[in-house]
């Protein structure tokens, strides 16, 4: 079992840290106030970050999932919004790599550098429960005609490539879903309203409306009626990455709290000397360590084609709870300053909260994990 990063990963990490410090952190507040940063996105494209996950054959750097998770962790320390943008982007890259035909890979993967991808499951009526989806895709000659609305799309509104999960055979229930790739140019495709969210405000969240939207069969991702497998693949990928974001939030919360606790004097002594503060610090430290381990283990298993649904779900479910708690502790430690929008502390709580809702709510994940635990034979 290898727990160290390779020299290559260490060099990449060094570059990402520098990039985060110089380009991401200084823009964090502005993104929190004004939304998606075109400026930063361009620099990320130019620096080869957007297509870090794309295989070399298609122009990217071709790094594995452990490295992708590390990249999201590092960048999220500057702004969790960037983490979530890349999470949504790279989960589509992963889907295309795994399920796309050679032709689809050649057409779409090179676009990952300068454009954004999004995956669309959720609909206005029914949250992430795929069962309650209503968007349909009907085969007409060489094309599919889509009708329906997808909402709460991460990167929605700014992405140019949208992977839509649609019903292709109602009779088969969950086994009658197919994924189709739409473009903002696709006839009948339009973008709806943008959400205004509590946190992760640097990441656009939008809606896609399909009214007799025409998608050629050559833009179908994967086999007909195999959509559910592709959707689950996306969940697994995204949950690992969200675990990485959760770890980054914890790391930031811990670092800020430690620095502050050592400087802030009360009755002539730093508050770091007080047990109440120390206990919070300890919880943050333990949470961070645990989250990172689960994240990297899940990514490692994914890299080795091992089933990792349970691990990925845990990374997100457990990580997001720890992240929210860490953010909460940080605000407490900072006291009044923690509550002030002038300080880079309170946003951590707002950003962390999203991790408990998006990509499968906390509650749903608990059910998923319980199902796995109850149904499978012990693996060890």
């Amino acid at each position, binding site marked *: 079992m290898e727990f160290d990063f390779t*020299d*290559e990963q260490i*060099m*990449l990490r060094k*570059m990402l840290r*520098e*990039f985060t410090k110089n380009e991401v952190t200084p823009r964090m507040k502005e993104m929190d106030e004004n939304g998606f940063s075109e400026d930063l996105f361009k620099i990320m494209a130019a*620096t*080869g*970050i957007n297509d*870090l996950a794309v295989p*070399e054959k298609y122009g*990217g*750097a*071709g*790094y594995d999932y452990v490295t992708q998770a590390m*990249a999201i962790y590092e960048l999220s320390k500057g702004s969790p919004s960037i983490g979530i943008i890349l999470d949504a982007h790279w989960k589509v890259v992963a889907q295309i790599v795994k399920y796309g035909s050679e032709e689809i890979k050649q057409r779409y993967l090179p676009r990952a550098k300068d454009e954004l991808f999004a995956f669309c499951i959720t609909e206005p009526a029914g949250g992430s429960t795929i069962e309650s989806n209503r968007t349909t895709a009907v085969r007409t000659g060489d094309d599919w005609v889509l009708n329906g609305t997808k909402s709460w799309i991460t990167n929605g509104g700014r992405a140019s490539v949208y992977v839509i999960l649609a019903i292709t055979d109602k009779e088969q229930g969950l086994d009658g879903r197919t994924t189709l790739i739409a473009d903002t140019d696709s006839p009948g495709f339009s973008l709806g309203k943008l959400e205004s969210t509590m946190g992760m405000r640097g990441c656009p969240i939008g809606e896609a409306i399909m009214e007799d939207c025409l998608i050629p069969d050559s833009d179908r991702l994967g086999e007909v009626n195999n959509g559910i497998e592709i959707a689950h693949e996306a969940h697994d990928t995204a949950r690992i990455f969200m675990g990485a974001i959760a770890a980054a939030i914890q790391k930031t919360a811990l670092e800020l709290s430690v620095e502050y606790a050592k400087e802030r004097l009360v009755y002539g002594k730093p508050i770091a000397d007080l047990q109440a503060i120390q206990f919070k610090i300890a919880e943050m430290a333990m949470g961070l360590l645990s989250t990172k381990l689960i994240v990297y283990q899940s990514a490692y298993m994914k890299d080795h084609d091992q089933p990792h649904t349970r691990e990925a779900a845990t990374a997100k479910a457990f990580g997001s709870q720890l992240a929210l708690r860490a953010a909460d502790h940080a605000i407490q430690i900072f006291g009044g300053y923690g509550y002030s929008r002038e300080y880079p502390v309170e946003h951590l709580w707002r950003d962390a909260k999203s991790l408990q809702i998006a990509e499968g709510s906390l509650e749903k994940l608990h059910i998923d994990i319980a199902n796995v635990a109850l149904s499978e034979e012990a693996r060890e």
Partner: protein
Amino acid sequence: MKIVVCVKQIPLSNTVKIDPQTHNMVRDDEEGRMNPFDRNAVEEALHLKETHGAEVIAMSMGPPIFTSTLREALSMGCDDAVLLSSRAFGGADTLATGYTLSQAIKKIGNVDLILFGRQAVDADTGQVGPIVAEFLGIPQVTFVSSMNVINESEIEVTRFYDDEEEIVETTFPLVATVRSELNTPRYTTPLGIRRAFRKEISVYNETDIKCDPSRIGMRGSPTVVTDTFIPKKAGRNMHQLNTNAEKAARELVSILRDRKLL
């Protein structure tokens, strides 16, 4: 056009260990970083690669751990990297370092431009560039803030220091030491890093480059570090002003007026 960029790996942090016997910095086992001015040098070389199809070789002299900075230079886009490393090179002062580098450059051959950062921010001497120029018998331009290649044998550079700017026309081959105003160094990229780790960094020792053993390493160093010490405190007895800001300001203004400083 063939360019050699000399880069130095400097300590990451402020804590430096000194060997109590040689009084030289202990460099091994330490994660380092590329001297910031060297990044400007690498960037300029890569710019010339883009505009003039130059071949760029990064070079460094030091212990094996210096490969990490050379790897970084490769990740930025340099074509090749050479490390000059050997026990025999150790303990070199600027003269011995300059000699070793110039012998290696001679070995590479047909080099048109040798770039250095204006100084290394650890030792801050800025001497090695001019020394190499002298040993190679070629012109030098230091503190370069802009470079403009006229043709394959001529170049115009701007030198800038303090408040004086000088435009110089000179010829290749040339040694140039560059300032941070010259350009903004590019980041390494993930793909660049991938490719860099597939490249092999050549390592040369004293037998690989033709050199006179009496001119390398400690033997070839006319200077000797005799001592290192913590500087004595300046010995001012500080008078602490009032803890209230307004009162302290008033106190200070009064003092400064008395001393004719206001």
